[in-house]
Every structure is written in structure tokens, then in C-alpha cells.
């Protein structure tokens, strides 16, 4: 799930027949391959743990307890 606050928003889930939806595919391609997140965060879907992204590099160091 990608929140961008960006004009090329994606639907929360792929619609059926998404392979044929040009517009969707274009947006997906854009988000996957053309967008570089400089500041933001990654979120683990299971634990909810946030990994901040700074200058394009996600910080995935674990704390003492997590490791």
C-alpha cells in the first residue's frame, strides 16, 4: 500500500483485470520504477514498525531488543 499524496494515486487494491488497465499500469510503473522516495518511511505490514527513509536511504538498523 503506497501513500504518496501524489496526483497519480493508486487504488487501495488492484481492480480485477488490472492487466488491461493502461492508466493503472502506467501509474504503477511510475510508482515502482520512477519514483524515488527521498524522505518518508517504510512500514512493516506485520509488525507496523516504521523504518524511516532519509535522503533516499531507508534506515533498517534494529535496536538492541529487536535484534
Amino acid at each position, binding site marked *: 500500500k503506497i501513500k504518496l499524496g501524489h496526483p497519480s494515486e493508486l487504488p487501495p487494491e488492484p481492480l480485477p483485470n488490472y492487466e488491461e488497465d493502461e492508466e493503472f499500469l502506467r501509474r504503477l510503473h511510475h510508482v515502482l520504477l520512477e519514483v*524515488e522516495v527521498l524522505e518518508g518511511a517504510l512500514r512493516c505490514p506485520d509488525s507496523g514498525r516504521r523504518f524511516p527513509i532519509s535522503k533516499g536511504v531507508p534506515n533498517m*538498523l*534494529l535496536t538492541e531488543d529487536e535484534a
Partner: protein
Amino acid sequence: RVFSSEVDWVSGKVFFRAAAGPGELRRLRSGERLFLLLKKHRPLPVSGNKGKMLHEIKSLVIEEPKHWLDIISVWRKLCGHKEKTDDVSQENTLTLKRKSEEETNTASKRQKTEQVRALVSEECQVEAGERCVAPERMSSQECWIENKNSSEFPSKGGGEDPTANEKLSFSFRVSCRCSGAIAKILNPQEIGRAIGIALVKQCGWRADLRDPDLEIFVHLNDIHSVVGIPLFRLPLANREYIKTAGLRSTVAWAMASLAEISAGALVLDPMCGLGTILLEAAKEWPEACYWGADISDSQLEGADGNIRTAGLMDKIELLKASVKALPLPSESFDSVISDIPFGKKFKITNDAQLLPAILQEMERVLRVGGTIVLLLSQDLRKRVDGLAECAGSDSPEAAADGDSGAAAAEALSVDGNSSPVAQGVGESFLRRRRFRSLVPAGVHAVSLGKTDAFIYKYRKVCAAGAW
């Protein structure tokens, strides 16, 4: 790469013949510097008489002036179109400095000793001599842009005249290196000076120790006597795409080439630092995906800068992560390549103690059939080898001091029962730790200038839990 014939090598040098243009030669990746070979002879006979020795050396190097004329014109044609400005006599035409030493008479060349036959025959490395480039090739290149410098030799006094004829003076420097029996009689400075004086007398050139047009390299040792001139102003090892240098690019390239990177491969450097290995690999094998991880912000910033300078943003992905706990799925990478930090420069303490944990994570993220290529210091390598000793080895080689050319070991059966005598010691270490899935696939000694290091290669032959 340059389709060379007559390849021959000794420790630290590779000699070859190729009919390739400078552009192609420039793309050689694992050599530090490239020279045009002028002479290669048997070692000079050594006598106790200094004067006699100097005479011998001079007769080796000195030739008819016409000969030097030819050499110079060949050299100029090769470098001519590389120079930004055409005026050879102008000092500092190039703003980038040469990596070569400041000390004038000793050529401190950093060489990489290549022990692997396959690698050497594939690529021409280190110092290479190129003889007799086919003349047709050369004339088809762009002709020298320098028009003011004719190839006539200036008269002896030409160099001193600042107004007229200043363009005609040609400056040179002799860099001499000697070892072995000769070194006991003469030192490089004496030799360099003697040759220099003789050349000035014979050819009328000007000696310039600071920034000569041409540097003549003379290497005398017990194996051969070699005279050469550099083909390029900058060493091959300087990469225009690297902004901040870390590990030397030639070694990085060699490590990447050992990793067997194929199209679509995923390659990881979990201690990437400034990203040198990833940069060299991504430039040479662009059809793969590269990931780099490091715990240091400053290193990652440097790496990011390098990646942008090189234009490899879409090929190399960076993560701030620890090699002891990689946020990456198991068996997801085809290759793990890393220069394990060592030495006082790095903040990692007890890195030798960390070695097993580091290797464990590397092994985990590697898929079966994948390769691990590591650069280890002499100390680390002793640890790797020595751990086998502690565990009570069944191989007599395990305790042996690392020999610099341990040949590639054959893959063993996974339970480690078979143990041929000439076992690479890295294997024993792994067998005793939990890494039975990794088999050694070669050890190569390399020189990092002041120190030596070793490239260790492993292949994962089965899943981690399978033993």
C-alpha cells in the same frame, strides 16, 4: 577484452601484445597502470663494479636518437587525442593529478598479483606492454591535435629559450625501480640520474622532475630488465565515474569478476562503504541489480554521491543496515561481495570476533549455487584459517600459514568426509563452524599498496539447514 596475443606475466606485471586503440585499452579494468613496452631483456649481469653496471644499464636504455623519435611519435599519437589541450610543453594541462608518486626516482607502482590463470588470460591486467601497434590502426585515429610541436628534436639549448622555441622542448623524467641482486650494488636514484644525464646528452631533452611530458620507467630485477613508457597520463585505476574512492578500483573489479555475475543477478555488498565494489560491478555488468548496505551515515552519503556521479541510480540500491542482521529474505541473492573492514581506519572493534556472525548472515541471504567473495586482511585471514586449528583439524594444512597462492579447492561432499591433503584452509574453518553449505572456490593474493590482502571465494552448495 583487447584480444591480445602473447600474454606473459610475472608477479605484478602482465605483458601482452594487442592491436587495440587507446580507447579500448583504457577500458582494461584490473590493471593499475598501462605501459608501452620498449624493452624487455634478461636480467642484467651483476658485477661489483658500479661504473660497469651503470654502463650496462645505460646501454640498455639508450638508443639512437632516431629510435627515440619513433617512440615519441608513437606515444604522442596514442595520447594526443586524450589531451585536452595540445600543447605538450605547457605544464599542468590536465588538472587531475597522477596517482604516481612524488618521489622522482622510485616508481612505487602498486601491483596486483594475480594467481588465477583463468582471470589473467581473460583480461589483461596490471602493467601491460604493448608492442608494435599496427600502424594502420593508428593513422586512422584522430591525428594529434598538437600542431605546434613538431617531432623534430630541439637543439640542446632549445629548452632554455623561453620566448621562441619553448614549444619544442620536450621534458622527461626517469623513474627507476630495482630489486634483487642489482639493488645491492646500485640504488634507484643513481640509476635514474645516470640514465637521465645520458638521455639529455644524446637526445637533447630537458629533464623535468616535477611535471615531465614523458616519464620513462625502468625496472631492473632478477627476473628481467624492462623499460617502458606510460600510455596514459592518468593511471588506469583512476575511474572518471568515482567521486570518492574507497577500496582501489582494480581490486574491486577483480572481486566482482570472481563473483560470476550473470544477467538478472542480484548482488549484495552488506558492508559497502563508499560503494566501490558495487560501482565497478554495475559498470561492468549492468544487467544485474545491486544492493549495498552499511551502518555508517557518512559512508552511505559518500556511496550515494558516487552512484549519482556514475549515473547508476537505477542499478544500485542503498540501505542503512547491519551485516549482522540484514533486513533481507533468505536465499534472495546470487552473490555477496564484500571488503571486510579492517585496520585502524574503521570503527569496528573486534571485527575478527564478528566474523562468524557476519558470515552467517551472508550465507543466509545467499541462494544455493551463489557465490561469496570477500577481501580479508592478513590478520582476518589468519583468523579464518586459525579457527580450523582450534577446532582440531584433521587436515595437516589447516594450521599452515596462509600461503599466498592457495589453489582453488575442489568442491567437497557436504558432510566433509573427504579431505584431500591440499585443502584450502578456508574450507576447514567453515566446516567446523556452521557453514558446511559453503565450499571454498579459490584464494587470491592481492596488493593494496602498503599492505597485502586476500580475496576468498566461496560457493553455497546446499541450503543452510541441510547438513
